[in-house]
């Protein structure tokens, strides 16, 4: 009987070998695919198995925390220092609902899984040190951020502040905001908060500063003025325009009106038109320059560019490439099809303040490993030469005049040179919605420090008449500029 027994032995050996080959296939060849399978919840738990790195503001103070909660599934939980204030920047990092904004974009560094941290991690593993994520250092100025958030208060809106010389974003606020800590975990409370926030008609989780586009209204008149100077239509801010008393949109019977009939807009100088924010003057300039020239100028300021990442992707601001003459007239005063994010209008103000050089806006200054080694550092980059330095000078004079003599008086700050432009943008079907109040501005300190700010307020008042950029948005911009340049 030994011969068949030997054959049975071989058969059993084959069975065991088959198992060995199979397990080599699954755990060797296919291992990575199974490990990184989207349904493999281990990856979710790994993310919170060790302290996550922090997001840090310019002064060096962290605005995030990683709390040791020692759950069976998750060892750590994300929390935020003053969550609602920073949420438009940090986004959320939730065990149940994923990540967003910087928490998502810098996840590699924060979670420590970035390949540039590989050497560090390997060393830590060998020395038995707990794995830890790296930090992300932002350009944010805590004072400016707080000032903007407090000034916006209960109003719905957004504020963006940029350092014109570098493009560094100093403040990025969106209200109403939310506390990402409310749904950082996986419990029932977290789920309730998540559902509540998503169902909220005020959309607290919408990043209005970067992701919402508004009609820019009169603030866009600076772009129109820039196009006029750049194309040689006017040489000087004192040049008199040939604006009629009643300007009828080209090829229509529709008369374009100004905010009030007694404004000195007929045959006004460019400066006066800007001071009083004359629709007729800039509508006519835009219509006569034509859509193409207007679009080119707008694009040099950053419109129609879907690739503005700070690194959070900003929505594309829009100036229509083709429009009828009457449409272009309306586009040129920031109505009709023109749309801009608050970031975009801050970029316009920054380019003007920086003598026409538009710097690429950025939020992340530095990424570093947990041992503080720098992994990457932002290098400043010019996005475009939006206007010539000469044109920029003229635009600055216009903006400073608006704050001195015009609609932007509420933005004046003692000891600082402030330029600004108000805007009250109509929107909705037949302009039925309450108008948006805009203010875009810059301030320069005597020592050369600068800040450019754009503020939009969506529903500053229930009374239509009380909504104006100068009244609602300018004080907010003022508070931000003051805080940003305050020593």
């Amino acid at each position: 009987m030994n011969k068949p027994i030997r054959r049975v032995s071989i058969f059993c050996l084959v069975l065991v070998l088959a198992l060995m080959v199979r397990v080599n296939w699954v755990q060797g060849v296919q291992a990575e695919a199974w490990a990184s399978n989207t349904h493999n919840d281990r990856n979710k738990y790994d993310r919170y198995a060790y302290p996550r790195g922090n997001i840090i503001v310019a002064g060096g103070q962290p605005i995030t925390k990683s709390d040791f909660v020692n759950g069976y599934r998750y060892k750590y939980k994300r929390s935020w220092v003053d969550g609602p204030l920073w949420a438009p920047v940090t986004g959320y990092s939730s065990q149940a609902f994923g990540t967003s904004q910087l928490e998502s974009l810098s996840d590699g560094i924060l979670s420590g899984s970035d390949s540039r941290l590989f050497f560090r991690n390997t060393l830590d593993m060998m020395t038995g040190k707990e794995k830890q994520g790296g930090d992300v250092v932002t350009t944010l100025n805590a004072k400016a951020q707080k000032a903007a958030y407090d000034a916006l208060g209960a109003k719905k809106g957004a504020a963006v502040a940029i350092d014109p010389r570098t493009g560094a974003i100093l403040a990025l606020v969106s209200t109403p905001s939310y506390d990402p800590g409310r749904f950082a975990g996986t419990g029932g409370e977290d789920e309730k908060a998540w559902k509540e926030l998503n169902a909220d008609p005020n959309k607290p989780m919408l990043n209005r500063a970067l992701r919402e586009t508004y009609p820019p209204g009169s603030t866009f008149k600076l772009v129109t003025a820039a196009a006029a100077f750049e194309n040689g239509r006017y040489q000087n801010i004192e040049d008199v325009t040939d604006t009629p008393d009643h300007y009828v949109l080209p090829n229509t019977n529709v008369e374009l009106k100004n905010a009030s009939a007694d404004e000195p807009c007929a045959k006004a100088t460019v400066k006066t038109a800007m001071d009083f924010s004359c629709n007729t003057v800039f509508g006519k300039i835009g219509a006569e320059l034509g859509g193409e020239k207007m679009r080119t100028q707008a694009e040099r300021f950053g419109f129609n560019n879907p690739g503005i990442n700070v690194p959070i992707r900003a929505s594309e601001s829009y100036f229509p490439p083709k429009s009828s003459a009457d449409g272009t007239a309306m586009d040129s005063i920031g109505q009709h099809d023109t749309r801009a994010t608050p970031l975009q209008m801050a970029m316009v103000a920054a380019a003007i303040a920086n003598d026409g050089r538009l710097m690429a806006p950025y939020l992340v200054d530095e990424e570093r490993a947990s041992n503080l080694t720098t992994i990457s550092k932002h290098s400043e980059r010019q996005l475009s030469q939006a206007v010539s330095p000469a044109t920029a000078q003229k635009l600055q004079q216009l903006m400073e005049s608006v704050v001195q003599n015009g609609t932007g008086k509420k933005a004046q700050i003692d000891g600082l040179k402030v330029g600004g432009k108000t805007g009250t943008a109509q929107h909705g079907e037949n302009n039925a919605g309450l108008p948006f109040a805009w203010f875009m501005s810059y301030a320069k300190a005597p020592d050369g420090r600068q800040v450019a700010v754009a503020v939009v307020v969506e529903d500053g008042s229930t009374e239509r008449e009380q909504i104006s950029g100068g009244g609602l948005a300018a004080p907010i911009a003022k508070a931000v500029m003051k805080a940003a340049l305050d020593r």
Partner: protein
Amino acid sequence: MSSSQTGGESPRTKRRENTTITPQGAPNRRNTELVLLAFAVVLPMLAYANVGLAMDGKLPSGMLGYGLGMGALALVAHLVMRRFAPYADPLLLPLATLLNGLGLVMIWRLDKAGSLLRKNFPAASNQLMWSALGVALFIGVVMVLKDHRILQRYTYISMVVALVLLAAPAFFPSRDEDFGAKIWIRFGSFSIQPGEFAKIILTVFFAGYLMVKRDALALASRRFMGMYLPRGRDLGPIIVVWLLSILILVFETDLGSSFLFFGLFVVMLYVATERTSWIVFGLLMSISGAALVATSEPHVKTRIDAWLDPMRAFAPNPPKTATEQIGQTLMAFGSGGTTGTGLGQGRSWLIQFAAKSDFILGSFGEELGLTGMMAIFLLYGLIVQRGLRTAVATRDPFGKLLAVGLSSAFALQVFVVAGGVTGLIPLTGMTMPFLAQGGSSLVANWALIAILLKISDSARRPAAEPAPTTTVDGATEPTRGALA
């Protein structure tokens, strides 16, 4: 090297009845067994410490008690071996102890996963109790079973007992948590899985019957289409028993066991008759049987679907019957990779309810990695190899058949479970011998090892064997004296 030398001689002696093995005067290897046993107790203790350190940051409080308990059990078993089976194979007891110990550690580790494992009630203490019972039964068999050939007397009683055991679960109501398989007998909170015991008892019947009928089966046959078919009166009874057991199992939807019993039957028939035609018959019948069951049983179809597409249950709108288990286990294996996460540091509780039982191999795969899995398969492979080695060395045909049957049943069970869990073959739902949670399986496999050891003791005994009916003790004494 006494074992390899005796093994080297038997294949060359073609005539079984006249096989003689010259006394070698070689050591009986009990000291080897003791050293290996010490290793088999210490290794799980270290694993136990590892889990404690990884999960709580300190050594488990029960470590000393556990170590002493396992050590004491192993020591008693070893001493009983020295007295009652001094020439038995030195590897089998340590191998079983090691696997049992590792399984205990993993079950304890999964107990600690707490609420992460739905319906998680502590199982380690129960498993420890069953281990003790298993070793007790092992000791009992080694002590009481003077000679394995005594079992031959119970051939037909075995048949009846096996059929009764197999049929019994059908009379007990099935529960939801058994997931379609009716394989338990229940008395209150206490339940046993008779299939595990039937595996051994049926092997005894097959061995006894085939030993008597093998000449008739092999020789008194008619040639038909190039193959030898035995006479119905020789083959009939065994076919009937085998068919009955398969039918019962199919009725109880215990597919793993029906495959196991089928394979066992074919292997034993082949070994007994030395006719290759049985393999061909076996293959043909298994293919047709599998096709029949696969098309008629919805339970089987579900499992084949899960095997073909393990991630189906994760897709949107999965079919109601789809199960996550295979996919979860494969992800556990993949996440373990080559070296594993380390004991206590994996997340195999994601496999959920069967993580401690049918799918415990997934937990090992994640925490010990490919390296650990290869080691575990080697341990199983060694058990099978030692069993088959015993079969080769044994001089009596009943012992040969019994050893071959028990070993190949063990091998088939390991293959069916591990193959199912790793996605090599469709899952059929059986327990991993020694590792998995479950009292019946543990106790039955300890008994299986005990019988194998008794056979190997008689196979490696240097002196000529006494007749089965005479007392063994009388024969043992002079041998010992000769050795001393």
